């Protein structure tokens, strides 16, 4: 059986880990198989969970979150028959042939929602609320700003981070206040990449009658008519595929971008009225161009810099 290890945010974070959970559930449903999962509580449990699952014969052991790459790198060699999957993390495939690293091109998906934000914006100001000032979140923000600027060179992108303690991911009240602050600075579309804090952003955007953009999972249904779209990160698909492949999982590094449909924008019945045809056309065009390699979206994590936004 496969096993799944969620990052510290916990299974039901309404975004990233929850997507992994949904993928695992989809796997269970489709194949009738079962799986085991654990919500980590502390740093030391990372290695512990990997080892215990590997020892108990679970295969593959799928993990979410960049923080798992380091523990996997130190454990993998001890269990050569077990396959490990690190989603969002990177482990050198040369050194550890039994590890699969799945990375997402969040900057590409963010680019697309950035475009939509800029097009939907009437004020020419769009906002971004991140959970904590860490590279991953900067990657989101950077792609978003590039997309917005691609549509409208004069657009102003306001970027805010919630805090520096773990509470930053679970403080919807602060998310709310940041949203109000950004609205007062003119923002009328706000992209939230901040876990539970983002729920406060979406809520306030709905209350104040502006657009918001969800992240990771499809969050359009939370406030139909207000959530412009969600930047999808198909962790669910990645998890389901890895689990279905079972012990035969192919290892190595896999980057899931627009081309692989690993990231994208969510359009469903909840937001179809908000997304104009013009927007769709532009998004499709940009997507094709990115896939074809004609448009290059700068990846913050490639060189720790962002041309479109300063942190």
């Amino acid at each position, binding site marked *: 059986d496969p096993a799944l290890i969620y990052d510290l945010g916990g299974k039901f974070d309404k975004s990233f880990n929850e997507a992994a959970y949904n993928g695992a559930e989809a796997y269970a449903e489709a194949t009738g198989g079962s799986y085991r999962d654990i919500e980590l*509580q502390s740093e*030391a449990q990372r290695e512990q969970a990997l080892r215990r699952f590997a020892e108990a014969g679970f295969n593959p052991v799928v993990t979410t979150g960049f923080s798992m790459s380091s523990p996997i790198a130190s454990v993998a060699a001890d269990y050569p028959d077990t396959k490990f999957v690190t989603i969002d993390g990177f482990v050198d495939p040369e050194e550890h042939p039994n590890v699969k690293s799945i990375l997402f091109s969040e900057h590409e998906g963010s680019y697309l929602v950035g475009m939509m934000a800029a097009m939907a914006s009437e004020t020419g100001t769009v906002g971004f609320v991140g959970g904590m000032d860490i*590279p991953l979140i900067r990657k989101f923000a950077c792609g978003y700003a590039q997309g917005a600027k691609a549509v409208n060179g004069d657009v102003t992108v306001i970027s805010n981070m919630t805090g*520096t303690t773990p509470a930053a991911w679970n403080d919807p009240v602060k998310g709310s206040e940041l949203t109000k602050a950004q609205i007062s600075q003119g923002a009328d579309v706000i992209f939230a990449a901040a876990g539970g804090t983002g729920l406060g952003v979406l809520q306030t955007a709905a209350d104040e009658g502006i657009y918001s953009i969800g992240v990771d999972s499809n969050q359009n249904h939370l406030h139909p008519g207000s959530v412009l779209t969600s930047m999808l990160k198909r962790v669910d698909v990645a998890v389901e595929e890895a689990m279905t492949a079972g012990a035969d999982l192919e290892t190595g590094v896999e980057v899931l971008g627009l081309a692989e449909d690993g990231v994208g924008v969510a359009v469903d019945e909840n937001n179809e009225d908000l997304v104009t045809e013009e927007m769709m056309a532009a998004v499709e065009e940009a997507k094709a161009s990115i896939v074809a390699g004609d448009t290059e979206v700068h990846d913050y994590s490639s060189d720790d810099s962002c041309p479109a936004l300063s942190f």
Partner: protein
Amino acid sequence: MPAWADAVLVPLISILLAAAISALVILAIGENPVDAFTLMVEGALMRSSGWGYTLYYTTNFIFTGLCVAVAFHARMFNIGGEGQAMIGGLGVALACLFLPMPHWTLSLLVATFAAAAFGAAWAFVPAWLQARRGSHIVITTIMFNFIAAAVLNYVLVNLLRPAGAMDPASANFPETTHLPTFQDMFAAEGSALFRGAPANVTFFLAVLACIGVWVLIWRTRLGYEIRAFGQSESAARYAGISPVRTTVFAMLISGGLAGMMALNTTMGEAERLVMNATEGAGFIGIAVALMGRSHPAGVFLAALLFGFLYQGGAELALWTNIPRELITVIQALVILFTGALDNMVRMPLEKLFGALRRRDA
């Protein structure tokens, strides 16, 4: 009531009460409490690697518990263990990254010094403000926790993070700084003893710290002065014990102990500095110190209990669908019954023993 009853019977019955209520909670969420407790005990105490984890957590809680306990002796409530441990971790990381030593023993020495110094430095400002300006230590240490988190966040994201890494963490420490784990120390080649468990030499450092704090508090002049000052400031002034000096020294020691916790997590376990290295151990330290009645032996036992709960909880999370919050609830109940509701057990016991004595007489 005989002393043994107070020392053994009261906590024992309290823990049983906490366990009983926990069992009810587990039942209420539709799980089997007997299975759950068996799993916890087996996972934490019946396997060597279980012990390896239990003692790893214990080490953390000993340090933070001692941190709170020392401050308590000077009648100061140091809520800042969390922040002091964070900054202590920074000290460890800087020492390990920039002052690598040829052998881990030397590295440990340097890192211990750095951890204690950084932790102490972080405690110094609140201590000094308390002593000189009367700024309430509870507020300032709370504030310094937040400030420490911001400092750590900035340093990890902008300064110590290797280029291109996603993880807001420092680079891995050089090989020579790696501390021997219990496995390295006790397991023969190929044996599974303590396999993979993070407990390491810092556990012994923690035990030494317990002894050291005991000696400090009950055997040295400084300890004598700290306790005197904590009991009565006016008497301390009469005896020529400087309030400023005593406050500052007690807090420096307290902060140093908190900082040393980072040796275990950062140098012993992660072998790099991560953002979330303290994980609230500073706050658990408050409960540990209070339950241990600020005595090193008590702190040790309480830390062991919490280590068991942490590791047992991990086992629960691994093999059942019980949400991890259940462990938080069990911890809460243990703290409540052993630490705050102890008189609920003691009062009837006292009556019982009183009646027994009268019948004998």
